[in-house]
């Protein structure tokens, strides 16, 4: 912000850095935030002798990149990766569709029982999974037997369907939709558009940052989910990445170097998604259509 925009045109002599002062804040903050990653990556290329150190050695003398192919060969990671990817992508798509519909309804539509239903949905977030996982297991098993085998126990469908819509997604989008100025929707409805068209053509395009955020968060949750896949999956061929990574860790001995290599490889898709999705987290002012108002 230059001095000229200030009313009165006061020009103060300011000490100007050759770069934005915010770097002085962001760089140390970022280093603090990514420090565990540095440790993760360094351990993943160490030999076991140096990895089994405490305090951890951050400047190893011997690098061992073979940890990566070793980790990949230790278990069918290709299969785990595909399973995790399919589960995550389908879960994200389902969530975007179902939670947009439901979130919009809760935000804008007045229907009988709206408040009560919203409260009931929120309450599903308030009981810990450790308690609900056994009923969920039984329900999933029943569905697999009586409705569709592909969504029952020991299929990756069982990892998708229970999470295909979450109270979190509905809550998140409802809050977001409420922040949008209602004028756009009203004018479209006056022009005769029905609610679905309003949602699809007006609201969703304005909500790209929120949708991108929900997509990224849902992907993350699905990718890292461990406890439900642990109890729902009974065959190695249906295992997801977190279960696969667990094979490096037994109760008494952990293969640190392979585990870290596996962790790093598991992180990469998520980092790519976040990095790529950044474009959608940022909305240009023009897209909001508010430049003129």
């Amino acid at each position, binding site marked *: 912000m230059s001095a000229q925009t200030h009313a009165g045109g006061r020009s103060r002599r300011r000490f100007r850095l050759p*770069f*934005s002062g*915010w*770097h002085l804040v*962001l*760089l140390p*903050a970022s280093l603090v*935030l*990514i420090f*565990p990653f540095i440790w*993760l990556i360094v351990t993943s290329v160490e030999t076991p002798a140096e990895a089994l150190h*405490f*305090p951890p050695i951050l400047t190893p003398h011997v690098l061992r990149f073979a940890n990566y192919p070793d980790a990949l060969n230790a278990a069918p990671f290709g299969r785990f990766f595909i399973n995790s990817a399919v589960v995550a992508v389908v879960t994200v798509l389902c969530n975007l*569709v*179902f*939670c947009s*519909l439901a979130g*919009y*309804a809760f935000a804008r*539509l007045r*229907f009988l029982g709206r408040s009560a239903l919203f409260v009931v*949905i929120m*309450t*599903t977030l*308030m*009981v*810990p999974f*450790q*308690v*609900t*996982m*056994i*009923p969920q297991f039984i*329900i*999933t098993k029943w569905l697999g037997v009586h409705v569709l085998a592909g969504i029952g126990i020991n299929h990756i469908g069982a990892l998708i*369907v*229970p999470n*295909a819509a979450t109270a979190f997604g*509905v*809550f*998140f989008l409802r*809050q*977001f939709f*409420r*922040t949008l100025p209602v004028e756009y929707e009203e004018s479209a409805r006056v022009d005769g558009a029905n*609610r*679905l068209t309003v949602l699809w053509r007006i609201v969703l395009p304005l909500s790209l940052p929120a949708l*991108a955020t929900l997509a990224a*968060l849902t992907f993350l949750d699905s990718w*890292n989910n461990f406890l439900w896949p642990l109890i729902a999956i009974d065959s190695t061929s249906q295992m997801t990445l977190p279960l696969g*990574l667990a094979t490096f860790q037994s109760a008494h001995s952990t293969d640190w170097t392979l585990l870290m290599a596996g962790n790093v490889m598991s992180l990469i898709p*998520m*980092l790519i998604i*976040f*990095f790529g999705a950044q474009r959608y*987290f940022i909305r240009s002012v023009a897209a*909001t259509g*508010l*430049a003129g*108002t």
Partner: protein
Amino acid sequence: MAAPTAPVRRRRLSSAAAARARVARSEHFTGWAFVTPGVVIILLFGAVPVIWSAVMSFQQSNLLSPSTPYVGLRNYRAMVHDPVVAQAVGHTLVYTALFVPGTMIAGLFLAVAMNRKIRFISFYRTAAYATMAISTISEALVFIWLFDPSYGVVNYLFSLVGVPQQQFLNSPSEALYVIVVMTIWGWTGFAVVIYLAALQGIPQPLIDAAATDGATRWQTFRRVTLPLLSPASLFLAVWLTINALQLFDEVYLSTQGGPLNSTSVLVYYLYEQAFQNFNFGYASAIAYFLFLIILVVTAIQFRVGRRFTYYRS
């Protein structure tokens, strides 16, 4: 409603009322049609297990034998007399009271800092998001090391500035705070993502208008930005609180409720009861007690939030 006037006007009014009624009816239908797919899934996999667990809380169940006799309120009465439950409630509330504001402030500060186009901004932002991607076990291991009383970095830094060495995870009075720090680190990325998305929604013209009116940057922030961020803040406060009250993973992976139950939070304690002591009915009762706490706290947050949240519509 309207005073009887010339027949033409009455017809127009009644058709307007009829149109409103038509819209209202179809709203109900549309509303339910929109929510049904999501709600069916959420209720089937969320509400049904929640009710099931409620039923289990009135039974004596050890998950081993199929016999689960109803014992009425016995589990709840045992809970009232269990000193560890009282401790766990205290720890859970203290943890939440520190974690939620801490994460929101850290997230807001970083989001504001990252809401600008400077070089490397993509790197900074990815650094923030990435903290969410790391597995909890890796996060726990790093913090266990950082806070190790003998070999950790934190005590080393303390020794450099003359602060006495602390016992951290070995100390019943400090362990919970270490977990607070660990989890704030883990969740800041989430807060940054939410706040960044919300900051994007604030039209620059509003900020510029405030500046033209002579407001300083801080005043603009306080009086324009913050209120416009209030829906995101409410969302974050509610979601972080719901998660904080159900803290489990970090405790399981680092202190296991210790030392001496000082980091025993409600979900960890009920997990112990269910899967180590085979007392599943009792664990369900504790879960319901926690559920009540979360429900009350969330309701209060929404109430208070309604007063302070500003929706631009």
